[in-house]
């Protein structure tokens, strides 16, 4: 690992001011530190945001659950409030990585990183989340731009993620057996108006599967998506799963999610 400067920011303003083209925010460090150790990333400055009180914590209102960006996965999975309001979100957090990762990794870090096989991005899409940054509010549908790419601008800091509480929801992940990231993860959420079927792991970026959303909005039953043959041409192929297998898993996991709702 190359030498770097460590800063601990006391508030969002300072954090954002310290940011440059060769800096990273340090939240849980679960992505940043390993990439630096492996020489895949080098930064001049690491800006620790964990001491910014405002960034941690969970608030539940009648309609939404708002989670501070620096809130750890373990806090989300253990939160009674989250379990009550959106149980699928708490179980998603419980299924991330291993205890060490959950004890450090944060929701803000996860969605800022936008790993194509990360779990949280699917929750953001399925639960019509709003990403609150120090500058603006961004709808989830406009936030995830592509592989490891988001709408965040340089120095823009995520402060909180606001999830809409659905009528019913479930997240079903087929994990990579080694890393336990999602080979395919499908988050189904039934809202008053419509149904979202957010898919992670299958393509270069999380997306809402229109075909299944439509079918389920008409009839919220797994039979309405049974036998759907998804186009696999844009799906990922790697040593753990071919595009064809992923396409099949997306439907299977979606059916499981509907059945679990």
């Amino acid at each position: 690992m190359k030498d770097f400067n460590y800063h601990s920011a006391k508030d969002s303003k300072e954090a954002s001011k310290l940011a440059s083209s060769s800096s990273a925010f340090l939240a849980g460090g679960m992505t940043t530190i390993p990439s630096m150790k492996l020489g895949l990333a080098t930064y001049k400055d690491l800006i620790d945001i964990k001491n910014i009180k405002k960034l941690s914590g969970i608030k539940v209102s009648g309609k939404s659950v708002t989670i501070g960006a620096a809130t750890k996965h373990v806090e989300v999975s253990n939160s009674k409030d989250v379990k009550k309001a959106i149980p699928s979100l708490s179980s998603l957090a419980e299924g991330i990585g291993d205890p060490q990762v959950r004890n450090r990794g944060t929701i803000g870090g996860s969605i800022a990183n936008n790993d194509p096989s990360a779990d949280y991005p699917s929750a953001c899409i399925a639960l019509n989340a709003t990403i609150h940054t120090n500058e603006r509010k961004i709808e989830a549908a406009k936030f995830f731009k592509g592989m490891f790419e988001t709408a965040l601008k340089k120095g823009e800091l995520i402060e909180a993620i606001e999830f809409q509480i659905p009528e019913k929801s479930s997240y079903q992940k087929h994990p990579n057996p080694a890393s336990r990231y999602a080979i395919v993860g499908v988050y189904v959420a039934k809202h008053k108006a419509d149904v979202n079927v957010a898919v992670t792991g299958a393509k270069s970026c999380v997306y809402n599967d229109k075909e299944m959303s439509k079918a389920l909005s008409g009839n919220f039953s797994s039979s309405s998506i049974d036998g759907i043959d998804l186009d696999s041409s844009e799906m990922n192929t790697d040593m753990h799963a071919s595009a064809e297998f992923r396409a099949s898993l997306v439907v299977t996991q979606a059916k499981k999610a509907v059945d679990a709702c």
Partner: protein
Amino acid sequence: MASLVGSRVERKEDKRFLTGKGRYTADINLANQTYAIFVRSPHARASIKKLNIDKALKSSGVVSILTGKEIADDKIGGLIAGWAIRSEDGTEMKCPGNPPLAKDNVNFVGDPVAVVIAESLAEAKEAAEKVEVDYKVLKAVTSTADAMNGDTIHEGIDKNLCFDWLLGDRQKVKEAFDKADKVISIDIINNRLIPNAMEPRACVADYNAASEEITLYTTSQNPHLSRLIMSAFGNVAPEHKLRVVAPDVGGGFGSKINVYNEDIVCSWAAKKINRAIKWVAERSESFLTDIHGRDHVTHAELAVTKDGKFLGFKNETIANLGAYARVFGTVTPTYLFGPCATGVYEIPAAYTNVKAVYTNTAPVDAYRGAGRPEATYTIERLVEKASMELGIDKTELRIKNFPTAFPFKQTLVHTVDSGDYVAGMEKAKQMADYKGFEARRKESEAKGKLRGIGVTSYFEACGIAPSAAVMSLGCGVGLWESAEVRFNPTGQVTVYTGSHSHGQSHQTTFAQIAADELGVPIENIDIVHGDTDKGTFGMGTYGSRSLAVGGIAIVNACKKIVEKGKRVTAKMLEANPEDVEFKDGEFIVSKSNKKKTIGEVAFACYLPGVRDEMKSPLPEGDEPGLKETSFYDPSNFSFPAGTHIAEVEIDPETGHVKLEKYTACDDFGRIINPMVVEGQVHGGLAQGIGQALYENAEYDETGQLMTGSYMDYTMPRADNFPEFNIGYTCTHATTNPLGVKGCGEAGAIAAPPTVMNAVIDALGGQEVTMPATAEKVWKACKNLKKSNAKAA
């Protein structure tokens, strides 16, 4: 005094390990030490055109940079294969040179070309990045099956073939096959594994210029053997000027048998720079450069009668050695594999032919089970297939071909002294509720799941020794084991063993044995191992040999102590030595109330005089002191055996295989500590099930390791396993005084075919290769659905 052998004595080593007081190689820091980083080849096969260290030398903190040139100039020897194998045509095996630092050619990704030694680790890393190596990249050979058709990797080694070995009689096999009603044949792959010991390899080398001694602390399973090899073949230092210490070692599984490049380079370099050098592997280096295991491609056939009697067996295997032949690299796919490939069955005619090939991948060597998992996988997959094709129940077919009497002269090499395979099978069936399977299968079916059951009966040859036998088969050293038992004057005992514990619990089980033999409380017995300066020469720990060979050496040394004790007691109590009996730590003159405790005798041996009396308690001819040594060379291997049964449930939509039940019924002979044995069985099963369902080392066609981290290499985790159902049958080994057989490898040997037989049973007999990943199983489920639809 109650016997300790057979009881669940708590582990003496746990206090140290569980409180963070273990002392591993990486915990050792010496005054003024430097840090080494190895510059490694990023290519699988290349010649080195130029190596420039000028820039790196100017980097801050650099102490020295050494390359293949210096090591060659100093005539430091390379790494060796410890076992000479002869081909069927009588020619000797062909082994390439394997210099500790490559000079002209590199042959796998990770092959070291230079070492950078600096004042700090960060500086060493920084400088290592500045070493410029100009490679001419050559086409790599990576596939086991095609290696013989690839470019020649090592000059003069045609077809990349190390040897083409035969065990058995082709003609007799042909005759047997001619008589057969049916021939069952199978093509299987034994997937390559990475051992993944929890503690990565490490070494700290020190040089004392005054005594001219090198001390090497290293992660080794056999420090004495390491010293011998480094001295005799590495030319690092004469044995008396080289001390090898293997302190606490966090797992080996065979991967720490070998002397590695880093051990030799750091020892040699420490003398050159006259300073201590520390090297600790990063996990990614472990993935790339630790020896790997398995990697066979096999075609096998079984000739049977229509009522299921086995007549003949053929085994044609290509074994991947990786880039170089290492210590157990050549024996693992031959004598540790071939003889066990006929399994627990009476098969009148058999042969095993192995072509061992070089490829541009990490060296392949002994990994937990070494050869016997591959053998057992071959025969047990074949027998399971035979049961399907013949329509005979899988347990009945096995029983039909079990030997009925012991000693059992196994087809190819071994004479198995003891066992009761039928009893093992019956008990395993009961434990697993074999009869209830059909009902459970129906329940799964009702849920839309596929359920399968798999059986394996295995035996293995372990307790690796007798010297005469192994040396006649090409082993470069004898494989006896030593022990030394020393009494202190005040009665405590130190036992020195030549074997090594890196998770096997020697400190506990060996103390149990000595406590029983000597009648000394276990608290007063210390077990010492792992340091060539302490105790006598020893051969180390692998092949489930610690207890069956090393443990017996302890028993024998204790027996010598008792014999001397009897003589001393007789002198002290004015009796005949023949009239002295020893029991529970006391020497008793028979038919009298005269006795001495072993503590009193030890004291007398060390202080053999009495004030104002010219009387010694020592009989004439006995020297003072109480210390005995034994070098034990057994008369045969030992042969654990057993039957394992697994049940899996498959989700046809996702291909997910859930291991529902696992039953292991093993015969390990006498059990010294059931808790320790359970630990060994659990660990072995985890690795064996890992091979069947999860683990796979994969190289791409350019020789890059695709599974070089835990992001892609699937190590099994606790939640992958059901509660293991473990039981035993017990027939004592007749070839050693404790009746023990060895339990370290059984799980890793039996589990892969057991689990795969269950998976394939669930899939209606369709072959899938290990590991049975979700996608492979999903595809097989789709085929099954298609063929069922057609049938309907």
